[in-house]
């Protein structure tokens, strides 16, 4: 009996605490991501920082709710219901599975997705221009043509381009299909190696030796998590490794003309701020990456048997020298 009274008291106290934490004039932004991962975490941070810069300060005139589903789709579903139920001003859904789950749960709440490569294919929006419903966002579709231009500039005689990717990752597969098509248009060939887990990346990279003149890696989560394995193969077999994201250059890739997921998050945050100011998500075009930066790593290039030209190095926004 005493136990029950104690429990009731405790429950009431907690409830009171929870209610107190919520002030009246606060705007609420709920952010969900499918899994904790450096790129996705950077998106989250970017959204936060952009909102703060636009005058929405967490804990002040803004309340940010943040949940990660830890890779579990049932939890993603519950997070979606939780957010929709609390009626925030805007929901941000990071990565395709989170965005789809949120789209199924949210009927009217504005949803801004981020880090989704193919929003039309994922049926999040009907079209990239003025999507119409309550959902819009930023796609991380890579500027493949610019990447291939860079690759040809550095290794003009490369004809067979290898890539390692996870066939279980929706974003990666969409990119690899596009890559294959664009390479064919340039008279080049894509050599694919599949890795379903980080532990398979090394083996997959080794299978490219002798078959590929250069390696180009997309923003595949599995592969980038274990990118050192690909780099080490590139160094041993003298195959230059290019990346789609700039962070990988610091880890030993030759060069990347990419964007930072943090900036991607900032761009997402700017869309969120516009909705907070009254814009209608249905009228807002799906945005794509607007800042591309060239990162080069001359030391890594040497180790992979090529030399970067001086004009390329002078074009770079950042020259990284990773020494191992």
């Amino acid at each position, binding site marked *: 009996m005493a136990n029950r009274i104690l429990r009731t008291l405790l429950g009431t106290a907690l409830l009171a605490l929870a209610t107190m934490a919520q002030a009246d004039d606060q705007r609420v932004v709920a952010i969900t991501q499918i899994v904790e991962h450096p790129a996705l975490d950077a998106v989250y941070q970017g959204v936060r920082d952009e909102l703060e810069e636009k005058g929405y300060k967490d804990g002040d005139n803004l309340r940010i709710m943040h949940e990660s589903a830890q890779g579990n789709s049932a939890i993603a*579903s519950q997070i979606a219901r*939780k957010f929709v139920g609390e009626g925030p001003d805007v929901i941000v859904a990071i990565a395709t599975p989170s965005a789809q*789950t949120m789209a199924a*749960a949210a009927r009217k709440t504005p949803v801004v997705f981020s880090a989704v490569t193919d929003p039309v294919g994922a049926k999040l929006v009907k079209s990239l221009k003025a999507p119409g419903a309550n959902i819009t966002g930023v796609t991380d579709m890579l500027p493949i043509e610019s990447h291939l231009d860079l690759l040809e500039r550095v290794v003009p005689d490369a004809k067979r381009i290898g890539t390692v990717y996870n066939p279980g990752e929706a974003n990666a597969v969409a990119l690899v299909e596009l890559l294959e098509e664009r390479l064919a248009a340039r008279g080049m060939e894509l050599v694919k190696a599949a890795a379903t887990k980080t532990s398979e990346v090394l083996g997959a990279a080794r299978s490219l030796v002798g078959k590929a003149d250069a390696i180009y890696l997309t923003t595949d989560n599995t592969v980038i998590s274990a990118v050192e394995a690909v780099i080490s193969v590139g160094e041993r077999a003298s195959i230059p490794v290019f990346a789609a994201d700039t962070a990988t250059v610091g880890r030993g890739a030759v060069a990347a003309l990419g964007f930072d997921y943090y900036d991607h998050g900032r761009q997402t945050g700017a869309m969120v701020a516009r909705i907070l100011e009254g814009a209608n998500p249905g009228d807002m075009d799906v945005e794509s990456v607007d800042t591309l930066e060239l990162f080069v790593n001359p030391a890594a290039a040497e180790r992979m048997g090529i030399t970067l030209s001086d004009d390329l190095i002078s074009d770079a926004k950042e020259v990284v020298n990773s020494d191992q």
Partner: protein
Amino acid sequence: MLSNIAFYGAIETGLIYGLVAFGIYISFRVLDFPDLTVDGSFPLGAAVAAVLIIEGVNPWLATGAAVIAGMGAGAVTALLNVKLNILNLLASILTMIALYSVNLRIMGRPNIALLTEETVLTPWYNLDLEYHQVPVLLFTLVVLVGLVLLWRFMKSETGLAMRATGANPRMARAQGIATGAMIVLGVALSNGLVGLAGALFAQSQGAADVTMGVGVIVIGLASLIGGEAVLTPSSVVRALIACVIGAIIYRLAIALALNADFLGLQAQDLNLITAVLVTLAIVLPGVRSSVVARFTRNKA
């Protein structure tokens, strides 16, 4: 503390995982067969249903096909065990990893969106109910039908033979029961239920994704054991009800954990909470009975 939508969402997911728990009850409890196939048969059910739905097949037929596909996967695991004498746990792991590739083949890509397709839920949205109550109503009906059918099956001659196979295989064989066939049937049935759960989950979530099977076995086990801890499963029907109750309690616990920011709990703590919940559910009944035993001994 929980909003209506979060509450109904927890019930909805709980009901779907109740079907998973039914499946795990058959393999793990009835047959004493630790079966990890479910991590693959859950997305298999989702994949089969999703592919058929986007091809324009009636969603209920697509869901039925998902059940049959799940049964096939379970049968493969059981045959690996019965015919090739591969250890049951290992047999299920082999099927599970094979299913990853099979699922990718079936879907042709890692993710199939169903957001704009007609699903089993679509006609029900015309009912005069709130949007988030509809799946709860439909899935309650599905779970009830499943529960009654399973209960009747377990009381049938075949069901009794299956229970005997799990309880004492040697005795069962001596009574003329084809234990191998019972294992194949039981594990197939179990994975058919999990395939059904996967198909329904994909339809309520708006997408089938090849990664959606991760951890299904752990959550199914947590539901089964949690339910047993709450409702002592002295009969088959109680055990089945316990499965559903356990799955719903688990989901409500997760929903509460998601709302417990003020306790200092954060998103990244969820897996730890799951592990603690499962451990408690496994350990507590034992502690309770040993406490009871001590008291009765003292009295005597």
